[in-house]
């Protein structure tokens, strides 16, 4: 199946591939540079969605993004899930596969939600071992995303950013830097988002995520149902300064608007990214430190 696919160059500002936009994407040319595929929705062979993905991939660069690895769980890795993911990877050839630094299932129950972990040395060891197992099985580096959270554990021993640095370094995985998640967690736990952002290992960042949250009064909820907010755009500017020219993706999973509206959001991201990169270039040419 390999030779029927287009090049898989991931660059610029892409969007998530969503069922709501299938028909429009199939029938109308677009200039979207790449798409992120929610891999968990395509893990059943023979489905109409999977056939659509095979067709779609012929003309579009894609990456995979999932929630089912449950990398922080204390139960054994789900071999059936991994097997299906690898088969889909072999069939579709995404540029990379990402999942979240959290747990989603334990004790035989799958929550389908992203539950945070206590940030301890013991959990670092546990996660590093599991990421290594996944990377060995898939035969490639995994890309791990920082999650938004609404609680912290009493047993936590280190900051989330130190935890991420140690996990990514020791497992030699890459990082999906979700800027919205940093902002949401910073507001919910009252820490400085800049401290988190500028501690991130820039050289490991494969991708940036942007999305919209809901303000629930007592906390921000990461719903992916709204436009990106102004403070997150501002943090994104800083993120581009920190990590440079990295692919960016707009996530919109609930109350999904028209394709044009999602594209509009990605163009805003592109404009900000290009402005920051251009300023950095000019600064460098003028001998300023950037």
């Amino acid at each position, binding site marked *: 199946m390999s030779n029927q696919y287009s090049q898989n160059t991931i660059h610029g500002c892409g969007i998530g591939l969503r069922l709501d936009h299938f028909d429009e994407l199939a029938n109308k040319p677009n200039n979207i540079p790449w798409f992120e595929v929610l891999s*968990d929705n395509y893990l059943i062979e023979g*489905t109409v969605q999977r056939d659509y993905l095979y067709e779609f991939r012929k003309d579009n660069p894609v990456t995979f993004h999932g929630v089912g690895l449950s990398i922080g769980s204390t139960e054994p890795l*789900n071999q059936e899930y991994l097997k299906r993911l690898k088969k889909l990877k072999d069939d579709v050839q995404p540029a990379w596969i990402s999942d979240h630094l959290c747990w989603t299932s334990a004790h*035989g129950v*799958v*929550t*389908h939600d992203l539950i945070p*972990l206590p940030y301890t040395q*013991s959990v670092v060891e546990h996660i590093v071992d599991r990421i290594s197992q996944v990377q060995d099985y898939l035969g490639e580096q995994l890309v791990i995303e920082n999650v938004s959270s609404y609680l912290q554990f009493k047993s936590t021993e280190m900051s989330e950013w130190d935890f991420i640095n140690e996990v990514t370094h020791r497992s030699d995985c890459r990082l999906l830097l979700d800027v919205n998640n940093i902002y949401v967690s910073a507001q919910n736990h009252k820490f400085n988002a800049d401290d988190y952002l500028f501690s991130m290992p820039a050289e490991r960042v494969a991708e940036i995520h942007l999305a919209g949250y809901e303000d629930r009064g*007592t906390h921000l909820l990461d719903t992916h149902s709204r436009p990106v907010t102004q403070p997150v755009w501002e943090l994104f500017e800083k993120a581009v300064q920190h990590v440079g020219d990295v692919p960016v993706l707009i996530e919109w999973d609930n109350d999904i608007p028209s394709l044009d509206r999602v594209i509009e959001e990605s163009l805003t991201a592109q404009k900000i990214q290009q402005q920051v990169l251009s300023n950095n270039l000019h600064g460098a040419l003028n001998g300023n430190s950037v």
Partner: protein
Amino acid sequence: MDNKKAIKTIQADFIDALFGGDIASAAKHVTADSTLTAEQRVGIYSGSVHGILTQALGLTYPVCRSLVGDKFFDNMSKIFINKYPPTTSFFAEYGNNLALFLSTFEPVKDIPYLVDIARFEWARQKVYHHKTNQQLDFKSLAEVTEEQQINLNFKLSKTLHLIQSDYRIDDIWFAHQEESELKLEDIDINEAVKLFIWKDKVSVKISLMSQTEEDSAYWDFLNAIEVGATLGDLAETFGEKLAEYLNQSIQNGWIRSFTTH
């Protein structure tokens, strides 16, 4: 307690709290502040998990949702989710117990066809998500000896599902489709039906098989296969029609394989 055991305990307590158990058991691991208590923070996750799963159930069971109303469906889902937490990573495989749950759920007893609508919607979901089989190889069937034929069992394709109901569930379902002009009040709800729910390349089709004796007999034939009738049993029951039914079923791709023991 060693650290590995500690995280295992945290996850067990969270699973319990998220699916209707005691929130305090998870909250004891969580810090509180002036904005939210530890219980409230765990409650955010409980709400989020139920929201995700209720949305998934609503997508699988849109007509059930419409029949009972959004608010009722959401509240009912909460009870269902706590009773049947997901054990699968694949959304398309979650919710198979809803018909069973509804069959003993007293608040819906006034909608007697709801259980069968749930069975119908689950069948649509299952059929839709199954791969269309290669047609059964006639040659392999011809190689079966006469002795083996007596105990031969056919297997139906998973892209075909048979449903029988005391209610006109196909029309009830159609009446809830956007493009349908059929109104619920115009349906003779108490008309019993036999249905095929099957996948035709990319879409799920419904065939009503109880309008004529011929259709009904063909439904009975495939149903007999599904419940384990041997070729000998089928020959005895369907006599001269057997060859025609078998041929038709193989052509339709509804018989995927056979065993001879």
